[in-house]
């Protein structure tokens, strides 16, 4: 009897939202909590959770519905459709992986519920003219362009590529090759590898024999450390190691000072950049999760903040879309504005940063207006 009463009260409470607008608005969050991308997914989970918590403390109530896609586009689509048609969210943040983001983005105009992509890199996502798809982070081509302009002043002549055989790895290297051609860099080695292998020495030995000025690297958390360990072991010493985001921007990598010192990397965010609240965010994140935030965490934090603040002023997905389109923000990721430019639609023209690891700490070194330190070139052991 008592149980019945409880469930009746619960049902009544469920129906409440239909009667008035007492219940908070709903936002969906699609992320890779399991699967191959779970390592990075966890950073996004933490960043987003921090945003929600802080906004709650400020009195902005929101119900966040979290969905896992396991990195599988089919699941991401199911998750988006569930959020939109069953849960009645007015906006969605995510998904993390480019494949999932592409699939969900292609359906967003059909359901007319805005999607804010926090960290997926593939250019396509915001190049198809979708009205309901917004992206906060800079796309894949910026990773290489910013790195190459950072070292252009030193007139390097040759470049080698070592990268993971993943979507991010291949896309980033493709754009890097275009950028390198513009700079007149000669490609002397190209080594694609399968993730998870224990031995990269043969590939690295080939790169060493080609003796490039620059080595352009795309790796994930763990293989970055493995690769650089073996690079040290065989004595690979170019003028600069250029890491495109991901594995070369983690605190764990920086702490391996033996192998990480003077490695240069492109990132969406650093904790010493002069964007409002960046340093403070890093401190609070460190206190809460006892590790340093990665740029993925910062992107998810800012994306969630923008989404929730805008959504709290909107009642419908249409209003939310208009709010995202018209709004501008200035938070830990610097000035944000979703603009249409050079083929992109609703893309935040985010300036990426170049950082260098100096004695286990990331220092922003490029572009000059965001940084306090100067790039150290060439690389030495």
């Amino acid at each position, binding site marked *: 009897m008592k149980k019945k009463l409880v469930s009746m009260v619960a049902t009544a409470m469920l129906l409440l939202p239909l009667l008035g607008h007492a219940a908070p608005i709903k936002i969906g969050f699609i992320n890779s909590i399991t699967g191959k991308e779970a*390592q990075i997914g966890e950073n996004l989970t933490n960043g987003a959770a921090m945003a929600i918590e802080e906004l709650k403390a400020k009195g902005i109530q929101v119900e966040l519905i979290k969905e896992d896609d396991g990195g599988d586009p089919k699941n991401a689509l199911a998750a988006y459709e569930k959020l939109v048609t069953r849960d009645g969210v007015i906006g969605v943040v995510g998904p993390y992986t480019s494949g999932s983001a592409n699939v969900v983005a292609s359906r967003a105009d059909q359901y007319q519920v805005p999607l804010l992509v926090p960290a997926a890199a593939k250019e396509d996502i915001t190049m198809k003219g979708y009205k309901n798809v917004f992206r906060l982070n800079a796309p894949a081509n910026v990773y290489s362009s910013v790195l190459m302009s950072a070292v252009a002043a030193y007139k390097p002549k040759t470049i080698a590529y070592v990268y993971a055989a993943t979507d991010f790895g291949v896309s980033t290297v493709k754009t890097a090759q275009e950028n390198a051609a513009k700079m007149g860099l000669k490609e002397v080695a190209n080594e*694609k590898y399968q993730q998870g292998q*224990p031995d990269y*020495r043969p590939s690295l030995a080939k790169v060493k024999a080609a003796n490039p000025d620059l080595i352009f690297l795309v790796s994930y958390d763990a293989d970055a450390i493995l690769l650089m360990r073996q690079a040290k072991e065989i004595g690979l010493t170019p003028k600069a190691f250029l890491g495109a985001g991901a594995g070369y921007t983690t605190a764990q990598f920086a702490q391996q000072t033996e*192998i990480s010192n003077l490695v240069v990397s492109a990132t969406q965010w650093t904790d010493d950049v002069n964007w409002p609240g960046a340093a403070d965010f890093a401190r609070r994140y460190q206190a809460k999760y006892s590790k340093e935030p990665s740029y993925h965490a910062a992107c998810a934090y800012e994306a969630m903040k923008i989404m929730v603040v805008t959504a709290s002023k909107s009642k419908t997905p249409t209003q939310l879309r208009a709010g995202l389109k018209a709004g501008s923000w200035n938070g830990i990721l610097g000035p944000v504005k979703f603009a249409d430019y050079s083929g992109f639609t609703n893309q935040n023209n985010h300036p990426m940063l170049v950082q260098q690891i100096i004695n286990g700490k990331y220092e922003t070194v490029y572009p000059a207006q965001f940084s306090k330190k100067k790039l150290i070139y060439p690389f030495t052991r």
Partner: protein
Amino acid sequence: MFFLQSLLSGILTGGVYALAGIGMSLVFGVMNISNFAHGDLMMLGMYLAYFAFTLLHIDPYLSLLLIIPTAFLFGFIIEKLFIHRIINHPHQNQILLTIGLGLIMSNSALLAFTSDPKILTTTYSSSAFHFFGGISLSVPLLLSFVITCGIIGVLFFFLSKSTTGLALWATSQNREAAQLMGINVAKMSAIAFGLGTALAATAGALIAPTYYIHPMAGHTFLLKAFTICVLGGLGSVIGAGVGGVIIGVVESMASTYLSSDWKDVVVFIIFLAVLLLRPQGLFGKKGEQ
């Protein structure tokens, strides 16, 4: 120089593969089961070595003295609880059971240790011996290789000289006949699975200082372990040992002279070729399949 460098690093990496392959081969031989949880057992070994190092400050190579008995016991219990119930079931059910057990292990690890990869950094993690001609040998890999050879030696001695070892061998030759001869076949299965687990965990612990530790880290080694034990001949310790080194060298040569993204294809082609041309493996006798 390329040739010598990739030969040497292939042999050293192959040593760790060999250990994983031997564990698989033993289970295959004695119990006639393809153990798809083998990679996940390796992963458990990696975490054991990691926690022994970070919490108890025991060197990963020294921690083997703890890991081997722990893993043996774990394998023994798993066999008694799950595997022995399906020992007479069709192959596919056995495979799916071990896949299920593997999923449970890797996803429990995911819940317990999160998906952040752990790096075991010892003082010698990225040090190497440098030789004339620019050839370098990784110190931790060399240590792992020496320990692997020691373990294979002890195992070979155990299997060919001790009573339990001979009983294991007899069971792998003919289960029914062994039973008729008064060998406790059920106990032999549990011992074999315990040994297989201990070897997998040892392989995991040995590779931990030069690799990374992650709940899904074992999956890379699963198909390699299968390839190795087919190559060496099911149930053959020496065969799997040599098979592991061969696979290590093939991978290394393929990345040097072909390209690193095609090296796994080369390994699988060799695997199929061995199955077709010499199904009993390099070290098996004909008719033993």
